[in-house]
């Protein structure tokens, strides 16, 4: 059953010029244990879309006009909250940052949940293991001594040192693109390392040694095999593999 919707009004084209419309087919990997049992299956939907539409808009059309049971997370719709990481045409992307016209709408677009976390329903996965790893690396500023009365000073260069890794929105696109994470889900994963990096290289922080110790774990940074899937997947453009390499080097310097 391929369902088709042709909604009249473009959801987002509004004021910005005349936008041509086209049809796209979404091939969604569905998993609805309560309704159809514990078997995942593919379902195709065809919707009409417009030039500025994102994949999220197409998913909304499916949910709102064709089948309300299609389930996914989303919130901000412009790539800053990290809710809607999913596997789009085989790669981890945010649905709200993928324009349909860039996805080659001639062929069905395959959409699957991110890999390596337990699937709850359709595109929704259980994020707990992901956040658990995040919490483990002590993702907060650690200082000793008395609080200063005014702000702690930090030069622009010191601030720049960890700028890249402050951008993380905890979307899990990186961790669930990592072939090592898929194997047994025990690896801390790139997102946790990125967030450790953010503090290890913050000149105000004094907890670097503890964090390095945590990541020196059997399931820590050493499991990374530099496959770069994480860097490729990060919607914030963070150089994840580079950050991981910097953490590894910091550990080696410390050990020798």
């Amino acid at each position, binding site marked *: 059953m391929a369902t088709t919707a042709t909604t009249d009004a473009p959801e987002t084209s509004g004021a910005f010029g005349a936008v041509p419309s086209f049809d796209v087919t979404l091939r969604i990997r569905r998993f609805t244990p309560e309704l159809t049992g514990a078997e995942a299956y*593919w379902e195709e939907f065809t919707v009409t879309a417009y030039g500025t539409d994102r994949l999220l808009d197409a998913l909304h059309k499916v949910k709102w006009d064709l089948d309300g049971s299609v389930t996914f997370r989303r919130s901000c719709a412009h790539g800053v909250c990290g809710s809607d990481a999913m596997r789009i045409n085989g790669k981890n992307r945010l649905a709200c940052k993928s324009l349909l016209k860039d996805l080659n709408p001639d062929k069905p677009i395959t959409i699957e949940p991110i890999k390596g976390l337990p699937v709850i329903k359709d595109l929704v996965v259980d994020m*707990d293991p992901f956040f658990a790893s995040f919490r483990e690396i002590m993702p907060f500023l650690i200082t000793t001594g008395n609080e200063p009365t005014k702000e702690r000073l930090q030069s622009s260069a010191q601030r720049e040192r960890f700028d890249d890794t402050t951008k993380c929105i905890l979307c899990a696109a990186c961790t669930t693109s990592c072939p090592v994470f898929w194997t047994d889900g025990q690896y801390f994963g790139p997102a946790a390392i990125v967030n450790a990096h953010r503090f290890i290289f913050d000149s105000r922080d004094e907890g670097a040694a503890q964090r390095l110790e945590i990541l020196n774990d*059997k399931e820590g940074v050493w499991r990374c095999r530099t496959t770069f899937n994480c860097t490729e997947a990060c919607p914030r453009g963070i150089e994840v593999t580079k950050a991981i390499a910097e953490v590894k080097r910091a550990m080696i310097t410390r050990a020798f």
Partner: protein
Amino acid sequence: MSAQTQGAAAIADPGAPYRRRRTTRGNFELYTWVFMRASGAILVLLIFGHLFVNLVAGEGIKAIDFGFVAGKWANPFWQGWDLVMLWLAMIHGTNGVRTIVNDYAERDGLRLVLKLALYAAFIVVVTLGTLVIFTFDPCPAGAPADLLPSFCST
């Protein structure tokens, strides 16, 4: 629709708190990681030299026979070369395969069996190889002279 149906793993209770498998901290993984790189760098030299001498220089693979090997190992330089190569490559390779086993063998039992097999293979091969290199006699008594390196007859 339903172009295809594939099995999905059952979902654990989504409310159950997640627990990481108990793990170890410490520098072991760090050292092996560094070792992989250091040994890799050295192995490039050793293996390329080895391959060149054995397969490219002279008459290539056709030339390899007892005489050729014996000729090389009569020289302590090649003895040392091959010994270092054997050890480095075996440790490097064994550790590499260990990582792979860790990655893919999820069940603890399977993991254990595979690793035991791996370490056993390592010990056997390294011991055997080392013994052969050191206890090797290039001119075994009673062997037909045409099979031996030329210096045996002198």
